[in-house]
């Protein structure tokens, strides 16, 4: 196993030792597929078998109901390297929840693991009992205990959920976290446009209002305009495999180099592997990344694109970008945002993206888009 070191033992032949970093070998444990995870949005319609779910109307609201169970499970973080995780529904990151603003998210949580856990959502939550912390509501849930959390889906954006048991550091880095995506309601955007941009109500022109509504439709999974966008979830994380309070393996979506290449000679040639392969994207399609930073121990994480600049929407809570034309953003833990990418002018081929902490990149958080 050679995470983060040059694969070649012979340094006299230049090319390979300097051009080829990454974990050797392919993943053999296929229980979790980071390529599938990118596109798994649970809206209550049964998108994932390991996430019992339902959607129905109740008191004039759409309810999206999910069953979450915390278990102590083993996850593979690099070929041949397993990590003793604590996980919601057996996966790290936990299942992505998706709802439309104003919906009710109902999570029937049962803790089957050995340690006490909660689910704390980063949402605008009006009932303190539902905050998922030790000091409120049901507090921590011991092995075998259950509680049903109810959260109003607000505000629009990309959000974070995680266990809030103590010690927090350990409960987060063991794997109890995931993403919640709240889509805008285009009708609400038309009525309250000033809540979705950095302009005062008096500054909203008809044109701006129409632009905001159009943008909202691209974000709402129930609108046909959303089908035109290729949307991906990336949760940046790390793993402290020897429990020394520092991460040894980094990734977007748990598996080191899973969006890398299978093989390269370091001379510009590469091959896709079975499990380690670039994310293929259609250059004519708009690309959107829901980016969340779950990293523990390191103060910040980052996302950097090669040969590409993007617009960034911090927390995803606005429909006008908060950063324009950047190729790097950083996030502290729990920070998240939406990245909008356009490759329509790029030639087909391989475009790298990674954390611009070189250490993180060399220890796993290094990826590629293959533009086709």
């Amino acid at each position: 196993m050679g995470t983060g070191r040059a694969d070649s033992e012979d340094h006299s032949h230049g090319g390979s030792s300097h051009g080829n970093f990454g974990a050797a070998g392919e993943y053999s444990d296929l229980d979790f597929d980071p390529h599938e995870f990118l596109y798994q949005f649970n809206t209550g319609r049964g998108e994932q078998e390991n996430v019992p779910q339902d959607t129905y109307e109740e008191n004039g609201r759409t309810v999206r109901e999910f069953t979450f169970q915390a278990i102590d499970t083993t996850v593979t973080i690099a070929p041949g390297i397993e990590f003793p995780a604590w996980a919601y529904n057996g996966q790290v990151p936990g299942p992505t929840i998706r709802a439309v603003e104003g919906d009710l998210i109902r999570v029937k949580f049962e803790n089957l693991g050995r340690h006490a856990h909660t689910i704390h959502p980063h949402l605008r939550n009006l009932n303190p009992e539902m905050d998922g912390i030790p000091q409120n509501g049901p507090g921590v849930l011991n092995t075998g205990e259950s509680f049903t959390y109810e959260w109003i889906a607000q505000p629009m954006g990309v959000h974070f959920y995680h266990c809030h048991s103590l010690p927090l550091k350990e409960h987060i880095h063991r794997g109890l976290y995931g993403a919640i995506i709240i889509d805008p309601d285009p009708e609400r955007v038309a009525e309250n446009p000033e809540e979705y941009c950095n302009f005062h109500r008096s500054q909203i022109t008809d044109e701006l209002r129409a632009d905001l509504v159009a943008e909202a439709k691209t974000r709402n999974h129930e609108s046909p305009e959303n089908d035109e966008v290729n949307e991906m979830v990336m949760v940046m994380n790390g793993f402290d495999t020897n429990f020394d309070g520092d991460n040894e393996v980094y990734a977007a979506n748990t598996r080191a180099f899973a969006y890398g290449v299978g093989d390269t000679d370091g001379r510009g040639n590469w091959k896709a592997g079975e499990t380690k392969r670039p994310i293929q994207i259609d250059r004519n399609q708009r690309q959107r990344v829901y980016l969340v930073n779950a990293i523990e121990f390191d103060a910040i994480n980052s996302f950097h694109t090669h040969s590409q600049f993007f617009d960034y929407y911090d927390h995803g809570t606005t429909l006008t970008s908060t950063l324009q034309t950047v190729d790097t953003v950083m996030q502290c833990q729990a920070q998240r945002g939406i990245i909008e990418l356009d490759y329509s002018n790029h030639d087909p081929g391989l475009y790298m993206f990674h954390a611009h902490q070189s250490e993180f990149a060399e220890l796993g958080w290094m990826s590629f888009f293959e533009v086709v």
Partner: protein
Amino acid sequence: MTGDFRFDAKRLTVSTGTQVRWTNESEVGHTVTAYDGQIPSEAAYFASGEFDSEKAARNNVSGGLIASGEAYEHTFEVTGTYEYVCIPHESSGMTGTVVVK
């Protein structure tokens, strides 16, 4: 299955045709779930909840739970080594082995 999240005995050797019985002597639920590919190839898959694969068992953890005081039984017909796990406590070390001679 004992109160400190382990199988007792962790490794058990029996002869063919033996019925093994796991009794949950703890206060919390556990599963007995064979690892796919870590049982003899001719042997039938086994799991509490009567799932036919590890994946099916993992997709329905509750369905495999043996409640406190209850038991699960399986008869081993084929010689070889069988590795199994308690799904909700895997990374807490709750795994076991049955060797059939």
